[in-house]
């Protein structure tokens, strides 16, 4: 198994559960290497000391913080831990809440917590069983790298899953955007029709319905290019991208008529593969 990103313990009351932290997600992106155009030889990013003009190996790089007087203070990993020793190795569970109370705007990155050895398995099992029963999520915090993280922990497929969260002051206010909106409030009739369209398109959330077409397309063009084929320029957009709808009611009614006529298209299995196909770009 991969190396954990962090090891420490979960503190629940006076019970300590040793845990190792792994990312819950993996990078599936197509990554490109930067090449030197004439001979296609790889380009490396090198870290160079500006004073000595010498490449610097990674272990010799420190975190620097610039003071107001322009001087720099360098910090080591030990310094970072020394600022909050306990928080750097313990996730303190402070309380339990309903997951629905946490607005998704706070969610950041998710990780999986795993007991590092058999000795920790019992306390881990106790916590996951208890949390599974309660249906609640634990709120706690700890320090990961250079930042304190507010976290929520819950059971997902029998594994404790930790999601880091933003602090309240890291979420921007909506006010400025809301104040700039000048349109007319929708009529009751418009809202009803819009809700009817939403009802027609409603499904139970199933993440497997959505494929990353962008990634798939990149793979295809890499293959074509490898075979020496040309890559065609993208077809111009079928419809102007900034049309406004002067007649919202008309557009809603047409939407409803079209969705209902398609009927089956509403069902998950029919769609999702190719999003463009079912775009109601033209009259059926």
């Amino acid at each position, binding site marked *: 198994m991969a190396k954990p990103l962090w090891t*420490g313990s979960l503190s629940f009351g006076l019970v300590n559960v040793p845990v190792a932290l792994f990312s819950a997600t993996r990078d599936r992106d197509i990554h490109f290497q930067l090449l030197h155009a004439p001979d296609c030889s790889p380009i490396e*990013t090198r870290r160079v000391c500006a004073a000595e003009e010498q490449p610097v190996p990674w272990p010799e790089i420190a975190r620097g913080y610039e003071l107001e007087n322009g001087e720099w203070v360098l910090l080591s990993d030990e310094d970072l831990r020394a600022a909050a020793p306990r928080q750097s190795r313990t996730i303190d569970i402070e309380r339990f809440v*309903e997951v629905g109370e946490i607005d998704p*705007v706070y969610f950041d990155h998710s990780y999986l917590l795993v007991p590092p050895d058999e000795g920790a398995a019992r306390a881990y099992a106790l916590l996951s069983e208890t949390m599974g029963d309660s249906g609640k999520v634990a709120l706690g915090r700890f320090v990961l790298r250079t930042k304190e993280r507010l976290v929520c922990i819950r059971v997902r497929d029998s594994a404790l899953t930790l999601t880091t969260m933003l602090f309240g002051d890291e979420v921007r206010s909506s006010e400025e955007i809301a104040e700039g909106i000048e349109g007319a409030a929708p009529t009751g009739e418009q809202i009803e029709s819009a809700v009817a369209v939403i009802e027609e398109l409603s499904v139970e959330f199933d993440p497997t319905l959505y494929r990353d077409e962008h990634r798939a397309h990149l793979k295809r063009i890499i293959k074509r*290019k490898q075979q020496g084929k040309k890559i065609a320029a993208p077809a111009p957009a079928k419809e102007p991208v900034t049309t406004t709808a002067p007649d*919202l009611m008309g557009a809603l009614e*047409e*939407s409803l008529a079209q969705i209902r006529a398609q009927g089956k298209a509403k069902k998950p299995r029919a769609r999702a593969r190719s999003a463009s196909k079912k775009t109601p770009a033209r009259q059926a």
Partner: protein
Amino acid sequence: MPRSLWNGTIAFGMVRVPVKLYSATESKAVRFRERHCSDGAAIEHRRVCVQEGREIPYGETVKGFEVSSGSYVTLSKEEIATADGPGAHMIEIEHFAHRAEIDPVFYERAYRLGPGKLGDDAYLLLHAALTRSDRVGIGRFVFHNKAHLVALRALEDVIALHTMRFADELIPVDDLEIPAPQRKPSKLEVAAAGTLVEQLSSSFQPDDYEDTYRAALLELIERKARGETIDAPEAEEIAPEDDLLVALQASLERQGGGRSARAKAKTKAKKPPRSRAGKSVGSAR
């Protein structure tokens, strides 16, 4: 008004909603720069051709995909852009779902949308319909040469956009080797732990939490700037609990002041129904 990061259109049925994308979050973490530890000098990142050993200006570079060791297929910017498709300008709402059905593990980053040119009426309509129906729209969009699954929802008086991970970007929990305990937790232990969860239960108030580490770190930086030496924290062995029940009972006692005797007698903790979370999609106001 903040600067918008992206301009495009939401397709909601036949209704087109021109929108602008704004960031909804900002990190307040203490920021560091890379410095050379021996002389404190700045570290520069330089693009160097491995073959020639010299620095290469960005204009002389191309992007390549390594198809086999050392062999690259190069793609121009225009060729890479062909993958963007309609998602580069348009977010088509493919479905609507209840927010509670989306596990937090999917969420990536939060943004806010404002109406684009002449889009105010349609924007207000979509906002009202999302609020009334208590649902979130699911679609896909391309941002910075990458496609994202997105959730669109009413948040306060605006529409929020959450980028989400595709299902295959999640690590299957089965991939982890979670060791099974030799002895399962006893009923008594689970009951005591359940009581502790009940005692610690409350509601979520984001403003209750403040980043205390930020201040501690800045204080430490100040001490270091004055020339103080910082002692490394002692490494502390974390031993797994031998007796979970004793630890739980002590926790209950500390928490509820001697209520643990009753708690112990209590049978298994009640099972509240799984929360129909996010029932109130737009209720963050």
